[in-house]
């Protein structure tokens, strides 16, 4: 019976929970288009854990916890993406390493089939099998409790009370939304204090405030800081970035099929502005996103004035764009696209319009060169200066933006800000996975 089930399940899509380390976000999106794989949003639904790129030290313990939360049979796969191995393999016993030239999807399918046919044993936990806090036999009834709401029943304390805006004093939940919470960018850790589904407070735990955030910027933008770069390549990279973000946002709002379509446009080598505008009309016409994002996460323009925030500022009506002063762009008749409302709805339409405009510029630019070397370039997430941070001002806005919002609106706001994946400081001797 089990063999028959294994044979039937052999080529079902492989459920994977991805821990996208540094420099892996782009490559991981490529996996979503592979019909043999399915990236799931909870470790409980996954049978393979894919560690992609470099895993910084502060993410190691959360990664071990997520590995333990996966149901058996499970296996961990490490996709180095050019990072030299150090201690990850010591901590993740028995990890399967994907060689440079191997097709990672084929490796994952092979491993799943081996797991199902029990040719490969399921990985045991890498954390000690011990209760979070000693409770067995403690307290009058032996379940670690004390009185009505005291003690540590079954290993965890009960929530405590706090006042609230509507005058009731009820329990609040201190939720630390971890580095690998699927809707948020990888590595962002928020300490949320919620009563019911309303967030009373939000605090950004990681990255530490005021620290530069290089974020995964397409290398062509970094090159454009120093030397002349073909304008078409720059604009295509911008369009690809915006389309990949759009795919993530569509997935967040439950439109997985349309997200696949946007991702296919992003990954396609040659994509015309017409295709992007057609997708935009479809999203507009089917009221697909109107009621989900209108009026969500409104960022007032005065908080954004003068900050290198690119699409987020332009969606709030500030026509700040480093390209408008560039002679090459002015020759092509470039005028920055702006919207007014400054909410999540304006932001996704802004990025879509910018992607279409970038592709049109790329088609018209031919092989025109940008006069690089001024140390300023308009990256997809805002003005990039040599060695400067791009998106950290947005992280300072988050606590004020999320406080008082319902959980769904708060997550939609964070997704609409397109924060870069968070990498801890290079200095710390990270676990160069």
């Amino acid at each position, binding site marked *: 019976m089990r063999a028959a089930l294994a044979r039937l399940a052999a080529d079902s899509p492989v459920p994977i929970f991805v821990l996208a380390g540094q420099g892996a976000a782009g490559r991981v999106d490529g996996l979503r288009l592979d019909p043999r794989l399915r990236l799931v949003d909870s470790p409980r639904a996954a049978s393979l854990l894919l560690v992609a790129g470099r895993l910084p030290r502060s993410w190691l313990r959360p990664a071990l916890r997520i590995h333990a939360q996966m149901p058996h049979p499970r296996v961990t796969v490490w996709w180095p993406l050019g990072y030299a191995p150090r201690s990850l393999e010591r901590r993740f016993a028995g990890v399967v390493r994907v060689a440079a030239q191997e097709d990672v999807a084929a490796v994952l399918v092979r491993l799943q089939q081996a797991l199902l046919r029990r040719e490969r044993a399921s990985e045991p936990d890498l954390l000690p099998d011990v209760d979070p806090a000693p409770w067995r036999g403690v307290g009058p*009834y032996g*379940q670690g*409790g*004390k*009185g*009505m*709401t*005291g*003690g540590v*029943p*079954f290993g965890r304390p*009960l929530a405590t009370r*706090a*006042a*609230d*805006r*509507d*005058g009731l004093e*009820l*329990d609040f939940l201190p939720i630390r939304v971890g580095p690998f919470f699927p809707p948020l960018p990888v590595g962002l850790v928020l300490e949320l*204090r919620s009563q019911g589904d*309303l967030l*009373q*407070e939000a605090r950004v735990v990681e990255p530490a405030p005021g620290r530069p955030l290089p974020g995964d910027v397409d290398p062509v933008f970094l090159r454009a800081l120093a030397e002349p770069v073909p304008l078409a390549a720059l604009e295509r990279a911008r369009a690809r970035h915006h389309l990949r973000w759009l795919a993530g946002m569509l997935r967040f709002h439950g439109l997985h099929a349309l997200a696949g379509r946007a991702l296919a446009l992003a990954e396609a080598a040659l994509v015309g502005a017409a295709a992007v505008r057609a997708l935009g009309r479809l999203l507009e016409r089917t009221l697909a996103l109107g009621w989900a994002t209108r009026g969500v996460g409104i960022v007032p323009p005065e908080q954004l004035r003068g900050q290198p925030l690119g699409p987020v500022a332009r969606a709030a009506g500030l026509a700040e764009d480093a390209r408008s002063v560039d002679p090459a762009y002015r020759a092509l008749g470039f005028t920055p696209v702006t919207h007014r409302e400054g909410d999540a709805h304006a932001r996704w339409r802004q990025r879509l319009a910018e992607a279409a405009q970038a592709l049109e510029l790329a088609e018209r630019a031919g092989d025109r060169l940008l006069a690089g070397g001024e140390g300023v370039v308009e990256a997809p997430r805002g003005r990039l200066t040599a060695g400067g941070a791009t998106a950290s001002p947005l992280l300072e806005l988050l606590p*004020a933006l999320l*406080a*008082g919002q319902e959980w769904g609106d708060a997550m939609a706001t964070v997704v609409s800000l397109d924060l870069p994946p968070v990498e801890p400081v290079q200095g710390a001797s990270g676990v160069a996975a």
Partner: protein
Amino acid sequence: MNAPLLADVLFWLFAAGSVLSAWRVFRADSMMRAAYWLFASFVGVAGIFLLLGAEFLGFILILMMAGEMTIMVVFMVMFMMNPAGLNPMTMVHQHRTSIAVGVLAFLGLAALALFADFPAAPVADTSRATAELGTELLGGSMLVFQTAGVTLLSTMIGAIALASVRGRYGDAEAGSTEPQIAPEGVGRGSHAMPAAKEEPEMDEHHGHLGHG
């Protein structure tokens, strides 16, 4: 297994199930379980309604109780201690008096059931029960029907006036300040709430007494 025997067996099953789940309501530690055991007890009673031929009343009882027991779970979990029964608790107080009241009630009802002579007038065709209820509503007890409507309206308005904090004239407690022990005590409503309040801080002497 002919029909009357099946009906009797089902009746005893529903009756026993209803009594058992009613007993479990007070033995369960978790508020959610207590409420849904009560819902199971109501489903038992609804089953007996169905056996008696009042199909519409039986299904309506299940429909209403599903919504209301879930709202009861939500309110019990919100306002009572030990929401999920992680620390054992007893919901029964004054054991002796409650046992006495229970026994007395049982004896009274049993006496009523055994010695009273109920009219033996079986209803001819059960399928018309809802229609008769309809004609009764529109004809004889039309007044009851309309006063029920007005009562429901007053319930709605009363519930919202009491429960909702936000009103047309601003927050319910914006103006009212609780008496504090210290003479220049700060009213409960206007001290700094942890959540950022939208409008600027109201000074406590100004403000509207309650809301419209």
